[in-house]
């Protein structure tokens, strides 16, 4: 029994070791397979990673390339944005204040006129006077007024009333060059537009064929200088080609011409004092040498050579405040032969004209808006022209009585009558009934 047990005891560890050994061998065999498979798996993963790495590398390179491209494009864009910004800045500056600006102004009128003693009652197409203003910065303005009208024969005529460059040299000095309205007196330069003129036409002697010079071609200095808080001094001094002889002895061409036929310039102008109470007093003067060579006129008449000294002076007064508009003006001109009557070949010619006009807007006495737009106006004037001592046919006394109705500050309907008493008995007097509508713009 003991021997068997001893054998058992001896074999037991051996058996156990064998069991363990065989188990370990089996285990070892299994681990190796696992390792191999794991190694394979790892190798596969590593290979995948390698591939990924390569792909990443490729991506990185592509990204770098794209980044570079983007950077180039960004730089370009930034440049473009900068240029757009500067362009926008330029544009906005231009929108805000262009160097050159312009304005189209002017006026137009139409009407009806019936003249006593004949049957010439006519609608009058009136005239259209566009005025162009072009200004460069704050120191130069070009301005021109055209007069477009339909004549009695139906033909349209276009005249340049003025075409001038004004250089603003100083707050109190402007240089005007070109063809400009005559600065003599107050009517021609300031009151002749039909929407400003309270009456329906120019006073006797102030229109074409009268004493009043209408325009001049030359250079003029003008401006206003405050003398005190209450008083302003204004001046206009002109040096131009001056007037020339007209067809008839008692006529002068007083429109500006682009050729001076005697190189003797006309010096003239106006000075005035303006009080803050709206009273203005002005004085005008003009001196010119006038000549014409002997010749045959286009209509076949013989024109004798003439040399004359022309002198004009005048005074004017204006008071315009509230409902009142009061004007008065006097002009006196004389043309005497240079070196005496026999040397000049013509008699001295003298012209005198004056008018006074009062207009009153009923807004001064009525709050009614319709009544307030009514403005009665009265004007009286005289025009005398003499060759030697002989009064000429155009001498007259003229009454104008009218009523204006202001539809707007620059739109007016004028009605009235005009009585012309000619001073030469052989010329019959006239009464004219008139309606005029004028629009200033």
């Amino acid at each position, binding site marked *: 029994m003991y021997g068997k047990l001893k054998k058992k005891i001896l074999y037991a560890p051996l058996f156990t070791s064998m069991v363990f050994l065989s188990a370990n061998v089996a285990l070892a065999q299994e681990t190796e397979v696992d390792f191999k498979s794991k190694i394979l798996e790892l190798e596969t993963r590593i290979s995948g990673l390698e591939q990924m790495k390569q792909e990443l590398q490729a991506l990185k390179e592509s990204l770098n390339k794209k980044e570079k491209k983007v950077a180039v494009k960004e730089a370009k864009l930034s440049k473009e944005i900068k240029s757009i910004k500067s362009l926008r800045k330029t544009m906005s500056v231009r*929108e*805000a*204040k*262009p160097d050159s*600006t*312009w*304005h189209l*102004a002017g006026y137009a009128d139409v009407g009806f006129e019936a003249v006593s003693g004949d049957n010439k009652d006519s609608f009058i197409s009136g005239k259209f006077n566009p005025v162009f*203003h*072009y*200004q460069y910065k*704050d120191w130069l*303005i070009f*301005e021109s007024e055209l007069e477009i009208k339909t004549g009695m024969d139906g033909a349209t005529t276009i005249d340049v009333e003025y075409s001038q460059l*004004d250089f*603003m*040299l*100083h*707050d*109190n*000095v*402007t*240089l*005007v060059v070109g063809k400009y309205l005559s600065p003599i007196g107050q009517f021609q*330069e*300031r*009151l002749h537009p039909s*929407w*400003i003129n309270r009456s329906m036409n120019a006073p006797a002697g102030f229109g074409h064929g009268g004493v009043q010079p209408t325009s001049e071609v030359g*250079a003029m*200095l*003008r*401006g*206003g*200088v*405050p003398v005190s808080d209450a008083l*302003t001094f*204004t*001046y*206009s*001094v002109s*040096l131009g080609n001056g007037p020339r002889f007209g067809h008839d002895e008692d006529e002068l061409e007083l429109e500006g011409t682009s050729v001076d036929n005697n190189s*003797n*310039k006309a*010096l003239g102008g106006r000075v*005035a004092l*303006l009080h*803050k109470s*709206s009273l*203005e007093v002005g004085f005008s003067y003009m*001196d010119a*040498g006038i000549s014409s060579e002997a010749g045959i006129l286009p209509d076949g008449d013989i024109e004798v050579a003439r040399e004359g000294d022309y002198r004009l002076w005048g005074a004017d007064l*204006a008071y*315009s*405040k509230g409902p009142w508009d009061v004007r008065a003006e006097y002009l006196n001109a004389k043309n005497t032969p240079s070196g005496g009557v026999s040397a000049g070949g013509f008699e001295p010619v003298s012209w005198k004209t004056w008018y006074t006009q009062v207009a009153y807007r009923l807004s001064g006495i009525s709050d009614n808006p319709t009544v307030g737009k009514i403005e009665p106006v009265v004007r009286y004037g005289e025009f005398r022209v003499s060759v030697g001592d002989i009064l000429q046919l155009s001498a007259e006394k003229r009454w104008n009585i009218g009523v204006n109705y*202001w539809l707007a*500050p*620059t739109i007016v309907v004028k009605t009235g009558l005009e009585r012309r008493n000619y001073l030469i008995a052989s010329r019959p007097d006239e009464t004219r009934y008139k309606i005029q509508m004028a629009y*200033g713009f």
Partner: protein
Amino acid sequence: MKIVKYFMAAALVTTVSAGMVAEAADKAKKDPMQIVRGAKSWAQTCSRCHNMRSPKELTDEEWEVSATHMRVRANIPGNVVRDIIVFLKASNNEKVKK
């Protein structure tokens, strides 16, 4: 007489030149009272010859040109015209103000 005329013209040009120098040193500055002065001058100056036009009739730019034209025509001092322009621009209700 000819010499006298040309002498006068030369004298006037000299006066102008002196005036230009003086003006260069007297450039207008911003002035809050300009509108007030402009309103007063507008009321006093424009009605000397014609009815007063409403400021709303023209745009800013048109008023500048129109007022410059009137500066020449009516012998209005430049500083007075600038005041009037400021007033007209402020009163014409132009929507787009720069």
